[in-house]
């Protein structure tokens, strides 16, 4: 009989200090990989503590209603229940949010979407908590719900906020007001609501502390922005609200906003017990923001040869009930919404509105994904009109280094649009389908036909994405790096608060330390708020920004070590470097052993050499509110996809046969991890093109489960040829360019294009459903 081991959240995830090799440019292994394959890695939902109780959430059944009364009595009387809390119990500001503090922690007088938290319950067993939650009696007075984004834009519609229904309207104006062109193409496009569908559900553990504060272990993308909001809601100073990152089971934007954070802390402080909260999958669909659905109207004008003259677009994002990051999504949709093409004349209106639909916010690709479906469909339409290939139209119009883009910003590093498209053209195409293998048919063997109606299509897409936070945001990261002797060996340790969500940032942090400090062993400190902010794990920014901070902190440490070495050995510091655990001269001569040098009590204290650096990329600017002009973005990252599909036109089924990518990554710090980002990102984009949609009807989610919300399986996902270019961005550390998002942007439009090519159908909405193909 074994006793039950207790999993303590202290320091979770546990030891990620495994010694491994790998400098930048090499395929270093993940330091948390062994824990992850043995099942020992402590995800947020795995945390466990003695005496802990379980929290659960009571949510609104209505998209829009006034709360008349809440009776917690029956719930509180349930044996095993420790607390039932409502808005009245929020001690600080009952308003949180990323850009606008417009979202209550617990609804007060009004609920604005179905699934909005109204009350929370703590009990000694999760099932008791769930049963008690059902006994919280909330009386609602149902209000008219605004569930159509177009209607919300109408000033005559119900106004959901004192400021109106528009979260942001961005105008981009360039060149002539009413340009004309020989060739004009236009279309409307619609994109459904996509879910991040990370596998690890929202979860965390809040532990009340003796100082009257709280320690929160949680899966998130940005500890410090969470901390700011939790402090404000609890009415506590930052030193009393300490956050630690627990193991994160994927994020993709869905963990930028708070979920159970404040709720668990409130319950913990109220019960004086550790409180664990774990959403199930259905609750997860209500518990985080989604990708904005969009309706778009586009028009491009061009010369007879296909050279673009103007682009006009109206883009409308449904932001749902709360602002979340809608403002920044509108920023991206507007400033990047025409794709990586040269337009002398531009007229864009991009809107994000409040409705009573589920709140929408960040998801991988952030405002560019939706627009890319429209601009790429239109580029294909233009190619067809002027009689050139989809590849040729993109090569002709793609931006180049030195061009001024649609917001007046000079693209001052590589913009290899032509080359990316050419790489795809040069890649081999998959073999023709052999009739024999029924398994390879769209839909596999379970069909009523045997492939008589299968046609093949090929589609291309070219897109770009801003990297890092834009429009003047103070975007920085903090790194603390220490070099010391442990067990006779020089060891580096690196402490940042930048969230590892699966992408491999901790591997990159180790690789940078090994490269800059010439040591083998690098300890990655658990991520928490005991060091300055690392900024968000989003916008493809961490390798760039936290990578930059770690590099800068290493350089500061190295400068001190080499200055000390110079005192001892007679070389100048400039003539010295760190390599292989030694101090070496530029000539290659080994001058000193690093561990010995660090152990010199006269030069260094016991704890070695430590430096903390706050690092910023070059500043961006807010854009002009009337024209959208300005240096809005730090960096642009380009990618292109070619999709090959087989479509059964009788059944409306699609099989993606190949999904090939060319992408410029500036510098691949970890080439294998870069491939992993491209493969995973491409698959998510393909999912949106083919199957992924949260179906919302009158404000209600119709498919909050993995039974009905489909994401690509291994059977749906094709082999991928990938070519990586490394054109260093001179402004970025090591020349890196953000990697994670571009593939999610270009893959979907390529799949849609391939289906259009195969079927000859217009297909102006994604996901493309069987009935769109069969027309039934």
């Amino acid at each position, binding site marked *: 009989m074994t006793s039950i081991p207790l999993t303590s959240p202290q320091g979770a995830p546990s030891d990620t200090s495994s010694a491994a090799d790998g400098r930048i440019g090499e395929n270093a292994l993940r330091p948390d990989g062994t824990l992850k394959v043995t099942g020992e890695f402590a995800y947020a939902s795995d945390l466990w503590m003695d005496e802990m109780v379980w929290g659960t959430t009571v949510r609104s059944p209505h998209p829009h209603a006034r709360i008349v009364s809440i009776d917690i009595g029956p719930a509180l009387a349930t044996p095993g229940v420790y607390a039932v809390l409502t808005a009245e119990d929020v001690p600080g500001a009952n308003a949180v949010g990323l850009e606008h503090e417009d979202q209550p922690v617990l609804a007060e007088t009004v609920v604005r979407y179905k699934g909005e938290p109204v009350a929370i319950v703590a009990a000694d067993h999760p099932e008791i908590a769930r049963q008690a939650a059902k006994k919280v009696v909330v009386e609602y007075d149902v209000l008219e719900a605004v569930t159509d984004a177009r209607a919300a834009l109408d000033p005559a519609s119900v106004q959901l906020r004192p400021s109106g229904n528009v979260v942001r309207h961005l105008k981009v104006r360039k060149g002539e007001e009413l340009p004309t062109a020989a060739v004009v193409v236009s279309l409307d496009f619609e994109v459904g609501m996509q879910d991040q569908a990370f596998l690890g559900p929202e979860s965390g553990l809040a532990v009340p502390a003796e100082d009257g504060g709280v320690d929160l272990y949680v899966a998130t993308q940005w500890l410090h922005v969470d901390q700011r909001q939790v402090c404000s809601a609890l009415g506590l100073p930052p030193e009393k609200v300490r956050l630690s990152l627990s193991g994160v*089971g994927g994020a993709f934007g869905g963990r930028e906003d708070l979920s159970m954070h404040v709720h668990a802390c409130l319950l913990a402080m109220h019960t004086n017990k550790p409180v664990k909260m774990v959403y199930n999958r259905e609750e997860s669909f209500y518990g985080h923001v989604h990708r904005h659905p969009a309706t778009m109207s586009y028009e491009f004008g061009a010369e007879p040869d296909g050279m673009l003259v103007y682009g006009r677009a109206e883009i409308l994002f449904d932001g749902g009930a709360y602002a979340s990051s809608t403002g920044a999504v509108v920023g991206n949709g507007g400033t990047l919404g025409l794709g990586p093409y040269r337009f002398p004349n531009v007229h864009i209106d991009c809107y994000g509105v409040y409705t009573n639909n589920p709140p929408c916010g960040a998801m991988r690709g952030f405002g560019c994904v939706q627009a890319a479906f429209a601009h790429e469909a239109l580029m294909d339409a233009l190619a067809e009109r002027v009689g050139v290939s989809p590849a040729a139209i993109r090569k002709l119009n793609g931006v180049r280094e030195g061009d001024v883009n649609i917001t007046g910003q000079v693209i001052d590093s590589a913009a290899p649009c032509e080359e990316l498209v050419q790489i795809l053209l040069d890649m081999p195409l998959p073999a023709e389908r052999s009739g024999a293998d029924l398994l390879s048919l769209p839909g596999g063997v379970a069909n009523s036909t045997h492939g008589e109606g299968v046609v093949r299509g090929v589609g291309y897409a070219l897109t770009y994405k801003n990297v890092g936070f834009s429009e003047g945001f103070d975007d920085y990261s903090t790194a603390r790096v220490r070099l010391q002797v442990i067990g006779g060996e020089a060891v580096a340790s690196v402490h940042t608060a930048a969230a590892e969500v699966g992408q491999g940032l901790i591997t990159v942090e180790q690789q940078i330390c090994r490269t800059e400090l010439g040591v083998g062993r690098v300890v990655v400190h658990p991520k928490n708020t005991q060091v300055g902010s690392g900024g968000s794990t989003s916008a493809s920014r961490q390798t760039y920004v936290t990578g930059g901070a770690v590099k800068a902190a290493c350089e500061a440490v190295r400068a001190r070590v080499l200055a000390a070495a110079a005192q001892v050995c007679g070389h100048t510091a400039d003539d010295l470097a760190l390599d292989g655990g030694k101090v070496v001269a530029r000539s290659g001569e080994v001058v000193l052993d690093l561990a010995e040098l660090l152990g010199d009590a006269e030069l260094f204290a016991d704890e070695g050499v430590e430096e903390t650096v706050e690092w910023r990329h070059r500043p961006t600017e807010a854009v002009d509110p009337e024209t959208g002009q300005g240096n809005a973005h730090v960096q642009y990252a380009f990618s292109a996809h070619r999709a090959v599909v087989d479509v059964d036109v009788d059944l409306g089924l699609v099989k993606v046969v190949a999904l090939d990518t060319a992408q410029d990554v500036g510098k691949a710090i970890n080439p294998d991890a870069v491939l992993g980002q491209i493969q995973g990102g491409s698959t998510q984009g393909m999912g949106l093109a083919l199957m992924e949609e949260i179906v919302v009807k009158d404000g209600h989610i119709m498919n909050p489960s993995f039974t009905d919300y489909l994401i690509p399986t291994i059977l749906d996902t094709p082999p991928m040829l990938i070519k990586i270019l490394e054109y260093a961005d001179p402004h970025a550390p090591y020349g890196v360019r953000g990697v994670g998002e571009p593939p999610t942007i270009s893959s979907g439009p390529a799949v849609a294009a391939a289906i259009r090519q195969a079927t000859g159908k217009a297909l102006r909405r994604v996901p493309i459903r069987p009935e769109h193909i069969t027309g039934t």
Partner: protein
Amino acid sequence: MRVTATVNGETHQIDDVWEGESLMYALRERMGLPGSKNACEQGECGSCTVYLDGVPVCSCLVAAGQAHERDIVTVEGLSDTGELHPVQQAYLEQGAVQCGFCTPGLLVATHDLLSRNPHPSDPQIREALAGNLCRCTGYEKILDAVRAAADRMDGGPA
């Protein structure tokens, strides 16, 4: 209800098992074995896959009571040597693990596949792993890992 089961070779006993309690809950919250993951609790994702009497099952769909007096192997028990099992090693080395939330279930499913079919073709791998969702990797490196594990367990490519 009291449930006694052998998990990873050791006898575990839990009391007061409630009616709706799943094997997944019992393993994760009561036996201190949180390796099997709780991504959907609906039998759709495979992240909770364990062996039950040698057959892979979604532990979220099995009632804890059904496991009484049966033999369970979880990801924590895939290797009993203290070294990583070749399947685990292959996932690690091939970069098949990103967030890793799908990994425990995929490891059990892969372990099962290779024990039935030491040299699966790509279509056979895809079929065998079709019940395991992964949101991070796009599956390419999972295929690489399965191929590498097959080679490793057999001492070289077939």
